[in-house]
Protein backbone atom coordinates (compact mmCIF):
# COMPACT_ATOMS: atom_id res chain seq x y z
CA UNK A 1 0.00 0.00 0.00
CA UNK A 2 2.84 2.36 0.97
CA UNK A 3 4.65 1.70 -2.29
CA UNK A 4 1.52 2.37 -4.32
CA UNK A 5 1.09 5.65 -2.45
CA UNK A 6 4.65 6.81 -3.19
CA UNK A 7 4.34 5.64 -6.79
CA UNK A 8 1.25 7.85 -7.04
CA UNK A 9 3.17 10.75 -5.50
CA UNK A 10 5.96 10.23 -8.03
CA UNK A 11 3.48 10.23 -10.89
CA UNK A 12 1.81 13.40 -9.61
CA UNK A 13 5.19 15.11 -9.32
CA UNK A 14 6.00 14.02 -12.89
CA UNK A 15 2.71 15.45 -14.18
CA UNK A 16 3.18 18.71 -12.25
CA UNK A 17 6.75 19.04 -13.53
CA UNK A 18 5.63 18.34 -17.09
CA UNK A 19 2.84 20.93 -17.03
CA UNK A 20 4.98 23.55 -15.30
CA UNK A 21 7.85 23.11 -17.73
CA UNK A 22 5.70 23.16 -20.89
CA UNK A 23 3.73 26.20 -19.71
CA UNK A 24 6.34 28.34 -18.01
CA UNK A 25 9.84 27.43 -19.18
CA UNK A 26 9.52 28.49 -22.87
CA UNK A 27 8.29 32.07 -22.15
CA UNK A 28 10.95 32.48 -19.45
CA UNK A 29 13.73 31.25 -21.73
CA UNK A 30 12.46 33.53 -24.49
CA UNK A 31 12.32 36.55 -22.17
CA UNK A 32 15.91 35.88 -21.16
CA UNK A 33 17.05 35.63 -24.80
CA UNK A 34 15.11 38.77 -25.73
CA UNK A 35 16.56 40.70 -22.81
CA UNK A 36 20.07 39.63 -23.80
CA UNK A 37 19.56 40.96 -27.33
CA UNK A 38 17.61 44.14 -26.53
CA UNK A 39 18.94 45.08 -23.09
CA UNK A 40 19.76 48.69 -23.96
CA UNK A 41 16.67 49.33 -26.00
CA UNK A 42 13.86 51.27 -24.30
CA UNK A 43 10.19 50.35 -24.28
CA UNK A 44 7.64 52.03 -26.54
CA UNK A 45 10.27 53.07 -29.06
CA UNK A 46 11.01 51.50 -32.39
CA UNK A 47 14.47 50.64 -33.60
CA UNK A 48 16.08 48.76 -36.45
CA UNK A 49 17.45 45.56 -34.99
CA UNK A 50 21.22 45.12 -35.26
CA UNK A 51 22.17 42.24 -37.58
CA UNK A 52 23.53 40.10 -34.70
CA UNK A 53 20.35 40.51 -32.67
CA UNK A 54 18.24 39.86 -35.76
CA UNK A 55 20.08 36.61 -36.49
CA UNK A 56 19.69 35.52 -32.87
CA UNK A 57 15.96 36.25 -32.59
CA UNK A 58 14.94 35.49 -36.21
CA UNK A 59 17.44 32.89 -37.44
CA UNK A 60 15.21 31.79 -40.35
CA UNK A 61 15.48 35.24 -41.94
CA UNK A 62 18.53 36.00 -44.07
CA UNK A 63 20.88 38.61 -42.65
CA UNK A 64 20.06 40.93 -45.53
CA UNK A 65 16.44 41.37 -44.41
CA UNK A 66 15.46 44.20 -42.07
CA UNK A 67 13.61 43.93 -38.75
CA UNK A 68 12.20 46.87 -36.81
CA UNK A 69 11.23 46.01 -33.26
CA UNK A 70 9.07 47.80 -30.73
CA UNK A 71 8.93 46.56 -27.15
CA UNK A 72 5.49 47.91 -26.33
CA UNK A 73 3.95 48.36 -22.91
CA UNK A 74 0.30 49.36 -22.74
CA UNK A 75 0.01 49.48 -18.94
CA UNK A 76 -0.13 53.28 -19.06
CA UNK A 77 -2.40 53.38 -22.11
CA UNK A 78 -2.54 52.47 -25.80
CA UNK A 79 0.57 52.47 -27.93
CA UNK A 80 0.69 53.43 -31.59
CA UNK A 81 2.96 51.74 -34.12
CA UNK A 82 3.41 53.68 -37.36
CA UNK A 83 5.10 51.52 -39.98
CA UNK A 84 6.95 52.85 -42.99
CA UNK A 85 7.90 49.98 -45.22
CA UNK A 86 9.73 49.56 -48.52
CA UNK A 87 7.89 48.49 -51.66
CA UNK A 88 7.37 44.73 -51.86
CA UNK A 89 6.70 41.94 -49.42
CA UNK A 90 6.66 42.86 -45.73
CA UNK A 91 4.92 41.77 -42.56
CA UNK A 92 3.83 43.33 -39.30
CA UNK A 93 3.29 40.96 -36.40
CA UNK A 94 2.22 41.51 -32.81
CA UNK A 95 3.42 39.16 -30.08
CA UNK A 96 2.47 39.03 -26.43
CA UNK A 97 5.07 39.04 -23.67
CA UNK A 98 5.03 35.24 -23.75
CA UNK A 99 6.00 35.24 -27.45
CA UNK A 100 2.57 34.19 -28.69
CA UNK A 101 1.33 35.91 -31.81
CA UNK A 102 -1.93 37.88 -31.60
CA UNK A 103 -1.89 39.91 -34.80
CA UNK A 104 -0.36 39.75 -38.25
CA UNK A 105 -0.54 41.81 -41.41
CA UNK A 106 1.20 41.67 -44.80
CA UNK A 107 1.71 44.30 -47.50
CA UNK A 108 -1.08 42.75 -49.57
CA UNK A 109 -3.54 42.88 -46.70
CA UNK A 110 -2.55 46.46 -45.82
CA UNK A 111 -2.67 47.71 -49.41
CA UNK A 112 -0.22 50.49 -48.55
CA UNK A 113 3.37 50.82 -47.33
CA UNK A 114 2.58 53.20 -44.47
CA UNK A 115 0.12 52.11 -41.83
CA UNK A 116 -0.72 52.94 -38.26
CA UNK A 117 -1.66 50.32 -35.72
CA UNK A 118 -2.92 51.19 -32.27
CA UNK A 119 -2.29 48.52 -29.65
CA UNK A 120 -4.80 48.67 -26.83
CA UNK A 121 -4.91 46.61 -23.64
CA UNK A 122 -7.59 43.98 -23.20
CA UNK A 123 -10.56 45.28 -21.25
CA UNK A 124 -11.06 44.12 -17.70
CA UNK A 125 -14.08 41.95 -16.95
CA UNK A 126 -15.83 44.94 -15.37
CA UNK A 127 -15.14 47.14 -18.40
CA UNK A 128 -16.43 44.41 -20.69
CA UNK A 129 -19.61 44.11 -18.64
CA UNK A 130 -20.07 47.89 -18.76
CA UNK A 131 -19.54 47.80 -22.53
CA UNK A 132 -16.62 50.23 -22.50
CA UNK A 133 -15.51 49.36 -26.03
CA UNK A 134 -14.82 46.61 -28.52
CA UNK A 135 -12.28 43.83 -28.37
CA UNK A 136 -10.22 42.31 -31.14
CA UNK A 137 -9.28 44.01 -34.37
CA UNK A 138 -11.02 47.04 -35.86
CA UNK A 139 -10.39 49.90 -38.25
CA UNK A 140 -10.63 53.34 -36.66
CA UNK A 141 -10.06 56.85 -38.00
CA UNK A 142 -6.50 56.66 -36.66
CA UNK A 143 -5.74 53.32 -38.34
CA UNK A 144 -5.93 49.69 -37.26
CA UNK A 145 -6.67 48.97 -33.65
CA UNK A 146 -5.74 45.63 -32.14
CA UNK A 147 -6.19 44.31 -28.62
CA UNK A 148 -3.18 42.76 -26.96
CA UNK A 149 -3.85 39.91 -24.55
CA UNK A 150 -0.95 41.04 -22.37
CA UNK A 151 0.27 44.40 -21.13
CA UNK A 152 3.59 44.14 -22.90
CA UNK A 153 5.07 42.40 -25.88
CA UNK A 154 6.68 42.91 -29.25
CA UNK A 155 5.60 44.54 -32.48
CA UNK A 156 7.78 43.27 -35.32
CA UNK A 157 8.12 44.83 -38.76
CA UNK A 158 10.01 42.66 -41.22
CA UNK A 159 10.95 43.12 -44.86
CA UNK A 160 13.15 40.84 -46.96
CA UNK A 161 15.54 42.63 -49.30
CA UNK A 162 16.12 41.23 -52.81
CA UNK A 163 19.64 42.57 -53.13
CA UNK A 164 21.90 43.03 -50.08
CA UNK A 165 23.07 46.30 -51.70
CA UNK A 166 19.54 47.63 -51.22
CA UNK A 167 19.55 46.95 -47.49
CA UNK A 168 20.71 50.44 -46.46
CA UNK A 169 17.80 51.94 -48.40
CA UNK A 170 15.30 49.58 -46.74
CA UNK A 171 16.84 50.41 -43.33
CA UNK A 172 16.50 54.12 -44.06
CA UNK A 173 12.83 53.78 -44.99
CA UNK A 174 11.96 51.52 -42.05
CA UNK A 175 13.90 53.68 -39.60
CA UNK A 176 11.14 56.26 -40.05
CA UNK A 177 8.72 53.84 -38.37
CA UNK A 178 7.58 55.01 -34.97
CA UNK A 179 6.24 53.42 -31.81
CA UNK A 180 5.04 55.28 -28.76
CA UNK A 181 2.24 56.03 -26.35
CA UNK A 182 -0.87 57.65 -27.74
CA UNK A 183 -0.81 61.33 -26.65
CA UNK A 184 -3.47 62.09 -24.05
CA UNK A 185 -6.10 64.46 -25.46
Amino acid at each position, binding site marked *: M*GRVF*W*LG*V*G*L*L*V*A*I*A*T*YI*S*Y*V*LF*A*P*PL*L*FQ*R*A*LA*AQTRDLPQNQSFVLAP*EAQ*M*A*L*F*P*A*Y*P*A*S*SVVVLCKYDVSAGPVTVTAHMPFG*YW*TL*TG*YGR*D*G*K*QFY*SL*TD*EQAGTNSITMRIVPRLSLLEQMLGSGGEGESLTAAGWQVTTPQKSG*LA*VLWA*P*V*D*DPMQRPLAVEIMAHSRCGPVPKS
Partner: protein
Amino acid sequence: MRNLNFALTAMAPGVGLGLVAASWSLSSAGSSPVLGNPGWREWQLATATDAAPYAAGFFLSSGTVPPASAHARSFFRNRDDEGNALTGDCVFVLSGRPAGLRWWSLALANEDGSLKPGHPVLAAPDVVTTADGDLVIRMARRAQPGNWLRPPGDGRYALYFTAGSPLEGMALQLPAIKREGC
Protein backbone atom coordinates in the same frame (compact mmCIF):
# COMPACT_ATOMS: atom_id res chain seq x y z
CA MET B 1 13.13 9.84 8.35
CA ARG B 2 11.95 6.78 6.47
CA ASN B 3 9.07 8.73 4.94
CA LEU B 4 11.49 11.45 3.86
CA ASN B 5 13.55 8.80 2.09
CA PHE B 6 10.44 7.44 0.39
CA ALA B 7 9.37 10.96 -0.61
CA LEU B 8 12.74 11.78 -2.14
CA THR B 9 12.93 8.38 -3.84
CA ALA B 10 9.49 8.96 -5.37
CA MET B 11 9.85 12.65 -6.21
CA ALA B 12 13.30 12.72 -7.80
CA PRO B 13 12.40 10.26 -10.59
CA GLY B 14 9.06 12.08 -10.92
CA VAL B 15 10.82 15.38 -11.59
CA GLY B 16 13.22 13.68 -14.00
CA LEU B 17 10.42 11.90 -15.84
CA GLY B 18 8.41 15.15 -16.08
CA LEU B 19 11.38 17.07 -17.48
CA VAL B 20 12.25 14.40 -20.05
CA ALA B 21 8.62 14.10 -21.16
CA ALA B 22 8.24 17.90 -21.40
CA SER B 23 11.44 18.26 -23.39
CA TRP B 24 10.35 15.48 -25.75
CA SER B 25 6.88 17.02 -26.16
CA LEU B 26 8.28 20.44 -27.02
CA SER B 27 10.49 19.00 -29.74
CA SER B 28 8.00 16.48 -31.15
CA ALA B 29 4.39 17.29 -30.36
CA GLY B 30 4.41 20.64 -32.14
CA SER B 31 5.00 19.29 -35.62
CA SER B 32 3.24 16.84 -37.89
CA PRO B 33 3.93 15.14 -41.25
CA VAL B 34 2.96 17.10 -44.34
CA LEU B 35 0.40 15.39 -46.57
CA GLY B 36 1.79 14.77 -50.07
CA ASN B 37 5.31 15.77 -49.03
CA PRO B 38 6.89 12.71 -47.39
CA GLY B 39 9.82 13.41 -45.10
CA TRP B 40 8.76 16.95 -44.29
CA ARG B 41 7.18 17.95 -40.97
CA GLU B 42 5.37 21.20 -40.39
CA TRP B 43 5.41 23.24 -37.19
CA GLN B 44 1.76 23.63 -36.21
CA LEU B 45 1.85 27.24 -35.08
CA ALA B 46 -1.72 28.20 -35.96
CA THR B 47 -3.23 29.11 -32.60
CA ALA B 48 -6.37 27.02 -33.11
CA THR B 49 -4.50 23.68 -33.13
CA ASP B 50 -3.76 21.51 -30.10
CA ALA B 51 -0.12 21.33 -31.16
CA ALA B 52 0.34 25.13 -31.22
CA PRO B 53 1.49 25.56 -27.59
CA TYR B 54 4.15 22.89 -28.11
CA ALA B 55 5.27 24.37 -31.43
CA ALA B 56 5.46 27.89 -29.98
CA GLY B 57 7.21 26.47 -26.90
CA PHE B 58 9.82 24.81 -29.10
CA PHE B 59 10.80 28.14 -30.69
CA LEU B 60 10.59 30.11 -27.44
CA SER B 61 12.76 27.55 -25.63
CA SER B 62 15.52 28.11 -28.16
CA GLY B 63 15.23 31.88 -27.60
CA THR B 64 13.82 32.67 -31.02
CA VAL B 65 10.65 34.47 -32.05
CA PRO B 66 8.12 31.93 -33.40
CA PRO B 67 7.32 32.44 -37.08
CA ALA B 68 4.11 34.36 -37.67
CA SER B 69 1.71 31.56 -38.58
CA ALA B 70 -0.72 33.88 -40.37
CA HIS B 71 1.68 34.51 -43.22
CA ALA B 72 4.38 31.86 -43.01
CA ARG B 73 4.48 28.08 -42.79
CA SER B 74 7.57 26.42 -41.35
CA PHE B 75 8.78 22.95 -42.29
CA PHE B 76 11.77 20.80 -41.45
CA ARG B 77 13.24 17.41 -42.20
CA ASN B 78 16.40 15.63 -41.13
CA ARG B 79 16.42 12.76 -43.64
CA ASP B 80 16.53 12.52 -47.42
CA ASP B 81 13.86 10.87 -49.56
CA GLU B 82 15.39 7.42 -48.98
CA GLY B 83 15.55 7.81 -45.23
CA ASN B 84 19.28 8.59 -44.93
CA ALA B 85 20.14 11.04 -42.18
CA LEU B 86 21.35 14.40 -43.47
CA THR B 87 25.00 14.60 -42.49
CA GLY B 88 27.76 17.03 -43.26
CA ASP B 89 30.10 14.34 -44.62
CA CYS B 90 27.81 13.63 -47.59
CA VAL B 91 26.53 15.74 -50.50
CA PHE B 92 22.75 16.15 -50.66
CA VAL B 93 20.81 17.78 -53.46
CA LEU B 94 17.56 19.58 -52.86
CA SER B 95 15.40 20.09 -55.93
CA GLY B 96 11.92 21.35 -56.58
CA ARG B 97 9.88 24.28 -57.68
CA PRO B 98 8.63 26.44 -54.83
CA ALA B 99 5.68 27.77 -56.83
CA GLY B 100 2.93 29.86 -55.33
CA LEU B 101 5.09 31.43 -52.63
CA ARG B 102 5.73 35.15 -52.29
CA TRP B 103 8.90 34.46 -50.35
CA TRP B 104 10.78 31.47 -48.98
CA SER B 105 13.97 30.67 -47.15
CA LEU B 106 15.97 27.51 -46.57
CA ALA B 107 18.19 27.20 -43.53
CA LEU B 108 20.40 24.48 -42.14
CA ALA B 109 19.22 23.68 -38.64
CA ASN B 110 20.08 21.39 -35.77
CA GLU B 111 18.91 17.81 -36.19
CA ASP B 112 15.77 18.54 -34.13
CA GLY B 113 14.81 21.42 -36.43
CA SER B 114 15.92 24.23 -34.11
CA LEU B 115 17.84 27.15 -35.55
CA LYS B 116 20.79 28.92 -34.03
CA PRO B 117 22.34 32.25 -35.01
CA GLY B 118 24.87 31.85 -37.76
CA HIS B 119 23.23 28.82 -39.36
CA PRO B 120 23.47 29.20 -43.14
CA VAL B 121 20.30 30.62 -44.75
CA LEU B 122 19.39 30.97 -48.42
CA ALA B 123 16.34 32.96 -49.42
CA ALA B 124 14.30 33.36 -52.59
CA PRO B 125 16.24 36.28 -54.09
CA ASP B 126 19.65 34.71 -53.36
CA VAL B 127 19.33 31.63 -55.56
CA VAL B 128 19.67 30.96 -59.26
CA THR B 129 17.00 28.75 -60.80
CA THR B 130 17.25 26.62 -63.94
CA ALA B 131 15.78 27.79 -67.23
CA ASP B 132 12.61 25.84 -66.32
CA GLY B 133 12.32 27.65 -63.02
CA ASP B 134 13.47 24.65 -60.97
CA LEU B 135 15.43 25.14 -57.82
CA VAL B 136 18.56 23.06 -57.16
CA ILE B 137 20.61 23.54 -54.00
CA ARG B 138 23.53 21.38 -52.90
CA MET B 139 24.40 20.87 -49.25
CA ALA B 140 28.02 19.89 -48.77
CA ARG B 141 31.08 20.79 -46.75
CA ARG B 142 33.10 21.45 -49.92
CA ALA B 143 32.22 24.18 -52.41
CA GLN B 144 29.68 23.11 -55.03
CA PRO B 145 28.67 24.60 -58.37
CA GLY B 146 25.43 26.60 -58.38
CA ASN B 147 23.44 27.19 -55.22
CA TRP B 148 25.30 25.85 -52.21
CA LEU B 149 24.72 25.60 -48.47
CA ARG B 150 27.59 24.55 -46.24
CA PRO B 151 26.68 22.47 -43.18
CA PRO B 152 28.42 23.75 -40.07
CA GLY B 153 30.11 20.39 -39.36
CA ASP B 154 30.29 16.72 -40.33
CA GLY B 155 27.45 15.82 -37.99
CA ARG B 156 23.72 15.50 -38.54
CA TYR B 157 21.58 18.45 -39.43
CA ALA B 158 18.08 19.32 -40.62
CA LEU B 159 16.67 21.49 -43.36
CA TYR B 160 14.32 24.24 -42.27
CA PHE B 161 12.07 25.65 -44.98
CA THR B 162 9.95 28.77 -44.49
CA ALA B 163 7.15 29.32 -46.98
CA GLY B 164 6.05 32.94 -46.91
CA SER B 165 2.44 33.79 -47.76
CA PRO B 166 1.48 30.74 -49.84
CA LEU B 167 -1.16 31.62 -52.43
CA GLU B 168 -4.72 30.69 -51.45
CA GLY B 169 -5.83 27.25 -52.57
CA MET B 170 -2.49 26.28 -54.11
CA ALA B 171 -1.16 22.87 -53.07
CA LEU B 172 2.28 23.32 -51.58
CA GLN B 173 4.94 21.16 -53.21
CA LEU B 174 8.01 21.01 -51.01
CA PRO B 175 11.43 20.18 -52.46
CA ALA B 176 12.78 16.64 -52.72
CA ILE B 177 16.17 15.67 -51.28
CA LYS B 178 18.54 13.05 -52.63
CA ARG B 179 21.99 11.94 -51.54
CA GLU B 180 24.55 12.50 -54.27
CA GLY B 181 27.55 10.99 -52.61
CA CYS B 182 29.63 10.65 -49.48
